[in-house]
């Protein structure tokens, strides 16, 4: 099946800083999603982005399907952005990466 790799595994930022999270996938996909897992464990949808670029407030994402990667940008980070960010990709069933643990310090 498809392999999904995320980097970095851990990221510590000062409040107000910008960051880029990366997701590489091993095969062609027709679904790619970014999630934020909150401290209570729920996966919150950030982007459904099998290709192209989307923006939502301080967050934006870009998927370059031909080169098999996606990027999640967080600008002007806030402490509430802390948590685990997952990328998931599929040709059939959604396969998750191992996540990026983001900590934003006040």
């Amino acid at each position, binding site marked *: 099946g498809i392999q999904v790799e995320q980097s970095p595994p851990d990221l510590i930022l000062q409040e107000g800083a910008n960051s880029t999270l990366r997701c590489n996938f091993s095969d062609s996909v*027709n*679904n790619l999603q970014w999630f934020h897992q909150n401290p209570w*464990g729920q996966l919150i*949808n950030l982007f459904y982005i099998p290709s192209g670029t989307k923006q939502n407030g301080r967050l934006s994402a870009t998927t370059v399907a031909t080169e098999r990667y996606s990027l999640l940008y967080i600008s002007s980070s806030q402490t509430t952005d802390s948590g685990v960010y997952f990328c998931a990709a599929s040709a059939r069933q*959604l*396969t998750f*990466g191992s996540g990026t643990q983001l900590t934003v310090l006040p």
Partner: protein
Amino acid sequence: GAGVSQSPRYKVAKRGQDVALRCDPISGHVSLFWYQQALGQGPEFLTYFQNEAQLDKSGLPSDRFFAERPEGSVSTLKIQRTQQEDSAVYLCASSLGSATGELFFGEGSRLTVL
């Protein structure tokens, strides 16, 4: 409902007991998925339904795991003779159309097997 609803949120079972976890998907969503998330890991696919048909059960770890969705809406994941390695969060997700559509997750059921 407004979102995917799962129950119970927390379940403690003694080793060897059977458990049943319920998922109520978003109304009208055709596709339903079960995932298992171990501590510190990403969710792993268990099984997929399109309406009442179980189209993919390749992720179920053993024959002790069984899922059903008899009327194409609510789904139940059953684990028989639970073992300690079954301890995990079980996540349910639904999507409006096919398996490749945008997935929406419930809050999960945290199972602890003692």
